[in-house]
Every structure is written in C-alpha cells, then in structure tokens.
C-alpha cells in the first residue's frame, strides 16, 4: 500500500499509456473491420477467403509479431506504434468475422423494405443495417477490448512502457507487490473499459436492451 501511494503518479502515467495502447487498436480495428465484414457477408466466396485470412492472422503469436514488425514497417524497435499496429491487426482479425455475422443476422425482409422505400445502398447500410447489427458488434468489441488490454502488457517485453512494465520491473527486483498491483490495475482497466462499452451501447443502441448478445 505504501509502495502504491509513493508510486501513484507513475502508475497513473503507465495506466494512461496503457489505455491509449488499448483504445486506439480497438477503435481502429472496429473502423477497418466493419466495412470489410459488411462486404464479406454479401460476397460469399471472396468473403470466405477474407474471413479465413483473418483467422490465420489471429493465430500468429503476438511477441514474434512485435519482433517481426519493425523489420517490415521500418519503424524503430521500441516504437509504441508497433504495439498499436499488432493489436489493430488482431482486433481486425477478430472483428471481421463478428461484423460479417452481425450483418448476416439482419432480417432479409427489413433490408428489402429499406430498398423498397428508396434507400440507396449506402443509406441502407448506415441507417438500417448498421443499427440492427449494433448489438452483435458491441458484443464483439467487448471481447476484443478485454483481450487487447491484457495483450498490451506483452509490449513491456520489448521495452514499450505500459502497465506490463510493472511486471517486468517487479520481476527483476523480486518485488511481488509491484506485480500484484500491476495485475490488479490491468484487470480494473479491462473492466472499466468494458463498462464504458456497455454504457455507450445503452446510449447508442437503446433498442438493443434485452437483445441476446452473440459472441
């Protein structure tokens, strides 16, 4: 407890860094994955290829990917951007399938009705399909967000500062308290972020209450 109070500033700073490294990939992943998922769902054959690529991408372990990426991007080894890119890739890989499933469960007759009332394809996608796909998308975002918060800590192994730094530092100093506080903060951050998504869902998708969440 004393250690926590003495280092509150630093823990706060690491938490903010950690939050950025988590939120950015989830947000970017969402923005990239939703259009791809929407597209994949309407083009069965090519869509299956895209979804398959997504799953393969997800099997690539994170630490090796963090090591390979600077060589591919030409970024510096310690650049936090590597962490953001890797975690965005995972978010896309996971969310593309969720997005395809989310759009697939929009009832066909609703889509036809939107067409019949003169919606253009873009209008229909944004005003009719996206809101109806919302609840399933939200469930996917929640899963991705929890796993991303937890995965960011791996970045500490290559020297990118975040709450995982408390693990590596605590381990080197043989100081259990630091690791326990790090673990607790990561779990709390994951729960807090999850609560934000749920709240955002209630505000943006008021019709979804009671709907069964997939994923």
């Amino acid at each position, binding site marked *: 407890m004393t250690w926590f109070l003495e280092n509150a500033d630093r823990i706060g700073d690491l938490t903010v860094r950690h939050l950025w490294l988590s939120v950015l990939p989830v947000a970017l992943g969402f923005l990239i994955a939703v259009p791809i998922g929407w597209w994949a769902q309407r083009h069965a054959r090519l869509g299956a290829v895209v979804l398959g690529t997504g799953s393969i991408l997800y099997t690539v372990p994170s*630490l090796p990917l963090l090591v390979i990426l600077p*060589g591919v991007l030409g970024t510096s080894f310690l650049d936090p951007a590597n962490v953001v890119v890797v975690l965005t890739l995972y978010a896309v890989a996971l969310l593309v399938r969720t997005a395809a499933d989310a759009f697939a469960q929009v009832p066909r007759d609703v889509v036809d009705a939107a067409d019949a009332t003169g919606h253009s394809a873009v209008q229909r996608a944004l005003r009719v399909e996206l809101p109806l796909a919302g609840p399933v998308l939200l469930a996917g975002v929640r899963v991705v967000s*929890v796993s991303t918060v937890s995965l960011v*800590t791996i970045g500490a*192994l290559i020297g990118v500062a975040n709450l995982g730094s408390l693990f590596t530092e605590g*381990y080197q100093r043989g100081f*259990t308290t630091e690791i326990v506080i*790090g673990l607790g903060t990561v779990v709390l951050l994951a729960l807090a972020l999850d609560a934000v998504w749920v709240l955002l869902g209630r505000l943006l998708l008021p019709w979804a209450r009671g709907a069964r969440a997939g994923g």
Partner: protein
Amino acid sequence: MSNVFAEAADWLTDGTHWQGADGVPARLGEHLGYSALTVVIAAAVALPLGLWIGHTGRLRGLAIGLTGALRSLPTLGLLTLVVLWMGIGLTPPVLALVVLAVPPLLAGAYAGVESVDPRTVDAARGLGFTEWQVLTRVEVPLALPLILGGFRSAVLQVVSTATVAAYIGLGGLGRYLIDGIAVRDYPQTLAGSLVVVVLALALDGAFAVAQRSAARA
C-alpha cells in the same frame, strides 16, 4: 532494416543452429512439451466441468463470468508473480499457462453440449439410455466439433504464449526471442519468431482438418 530478414534466413540455414541443446529441434521439443503438459492439465480440469455444466445447465452464469474474468488476466503478470512465489521451475509457467487454456476449453465443452438438439437428448432418454450414456454416446459425439474448437484456441494460445515463458528462464522457442532482444541480436530474434509463427500455423491447419472430419462424422 530489411536485411534483417536476410540475416534471419542465414541464421535459420546455419547448420549449427539445428543441433545441440539450444538447437531448433531441441527448443521445438521443449516448446511442444510444455504446451502439451499445459493443455493436458487444463483439459483434465475444464472438460469434465464443462461437460457437467452443459449437461445439467447448472452454474452456467458462473462459467460465463469465470471465462471472461480469466481472459482479462495478463499471462505475463501471472507468470512473473507465480515465479516470485514458487521459484524458478516448470510449475510456475505451466500453472500460468493452464489459467490461459481453461477458458476456451471450458467454453467449448459447455457450449458444445448445450448446442445438442434437446429432442435428440430426449429421444436417447426415451430409448432407456442412462444419463451417463446420454452424455458419452449422444452429447459428447455431437458436441465434438465445438469441443475441438475449444482445444484449437487453447492450444494456439498456449503455444503462442509459451514464448513469453522464456522470460522467466524457461526453455522453448521463446529463448531465441528473449535472448535475442536482451543482446540486440535481432536476426536470431526474428528467426525464432518465424519458427513460432510456422508452428502456430501448422497446428491451426491440423486442427482445421480434424474439426472438419469431426463435423462430417
């Protein structure tokens, strides 16, 4: 920076890196050994529990909450913590990796049994099957694709996270990564990374085939 790939290729084709206690085959063997041990222990815990939850429908809410909570626990933190508590050895990493492998196995088992058509289960009961026979002869075979799906994600997560275990002094393929990072030998790090990636993709492919044949059977 792109010549790092050429250097990594040189590292991989260098015969001296393929023999001895820190050669690729030995490290690969260690890596698969830890992973297999972990998955076996996790399955021994998670499968009976998951099948029971799926069969009886009891404790379902708890199982969902538990799998979610376990997923938010960062393995690196768990790993370092258990080592400080129990000291270096095989137990800490295996314990930390078991925590990682339990959620997908548990979810696959209970979701698999739950997904079996209740009419099929009722028909089996009507034929005079005991509960045990219903579970082993009807529910488990029908749930097999989802149970295998749970194994697939558990194995992949364990194999990819076992690299992190090298950080606490364990062997396995992670050695090339962690040692390479420590002494800035990036070609070695990259070569090790590529071996792990190929291993993960190969295992995933094997599971894809197994799942397809289980679904057809």
